[in-house]
């Protein structure tokens, strides 16, 4: 299944062209996307470090989660909205970008990790969440979250580089991974 026809259609819409060609909207969107990292990833990192037992040991995990989660969700919504608009401005190149694809896959994995934690060990937080170091499964979730979000951030930053762009002529592997189609773009 290829989403390329959809991206090609999207790229032809008025809004996409306007965003793509605007001198201020695109940089503003990108700046908002980047600065919201402080809110969303910054808060996630604090929670993950707490799950690892490396910081805020005196504060119960449940207390941190319930106080921080609304801010994380707010940050996440901002990231998704600005991220979707950035994609909307440059749909075809993003879709055929290996770093963008890596970022989307890692996003799904980060989501799965968070979901596994919440329906798993987090349900028993009453037994372990008070003070000190959380159990192995919670620490594991925190470590995985740190790694996965770091990959999301770095691969997101790398989308800007054209090293592996289809139109530059790539190896067979990159052509496959990026879904390059001869003549498109």
């Amino acid at each position: 299944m290829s989403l390329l026809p959809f991206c090609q259609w999207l790229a032809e819409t008025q809004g996409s062209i306007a965003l793509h060609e605007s001198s201020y909207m695109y940089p503003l969107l990108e700046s908002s996307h980047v600065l919201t990292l402080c809110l969303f990833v910054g808060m996630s990192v604090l929670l993950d470090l707490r799950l690892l037992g490396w910081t805020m040991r005196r504060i119960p995990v449940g207390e941190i989660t319930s106080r921080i989660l609304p801010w994380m969700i707010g940050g996440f919504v901002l990231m998704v909205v600005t991220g979707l608009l950035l994609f909307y401005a440059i749909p075809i190149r993003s879709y055929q970008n290996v770093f963008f694809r890596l970022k989307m896959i890692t996003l799904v994995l980060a989501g799965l990790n968070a979901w596994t934690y919440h329906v798993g060990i987090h349900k028993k937080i009453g037994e372990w969440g008070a003070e000190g170091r959380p159990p192995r499964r919670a620490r594991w979730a925190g470590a995985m979250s740190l790694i996965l979000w770091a990959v999301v951030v770095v691969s997101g930053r790398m989308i800007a580089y054209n090293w592996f762009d289809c139109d530059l002529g790539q190896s067979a592997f990159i052509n496959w991974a990026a879904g390059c189609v001869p003549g498109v773009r």
Partner: protein
Amino acid sequence: MFEYFHAIEFSAAGQMIKNSSWAFAVTESVHLLALSVIGGAVLIVDLRMLGFGLKRQPVADVAADAYPIMVASLVVMLVTGFMLFMSEAVKCYYSQPFLVKMIALALAITFTFTVRRKVARAADGRISPAVYRTVALVSLMLWFTVGAAGRWIGFSG
């Protein structure tokens, strides 16, 4: 002043980062990761001083926990930031966002390690909510300017 900027860019290290196809990208990625971390460490304390987030803990406790995280990520930001600067010092010399960022950065660091540190460490009940709020807002404004102007260096010139 220009000679210094020029000399830094054309130093061996400056040229190495500039001419490598991945050194700048990797350095910038680490800069961005540290931005996320320092953002969290600053926000958790500023939000607490504004009356949000970890409301049940004293400001001083939250600040003490966040302090090592903030300092560590600040060191990473300064080191990687200087490396990025080395690779394009001449561009930075002519860049208005760069100048704004450096002024805001000097103010933010000074404010954070003097006024904000003193207020955040004070015992519970010794600081009025209005003072907490003012300190938090000044901190947020200064660090926001650093971040926004920093992002704008890449868009201009």
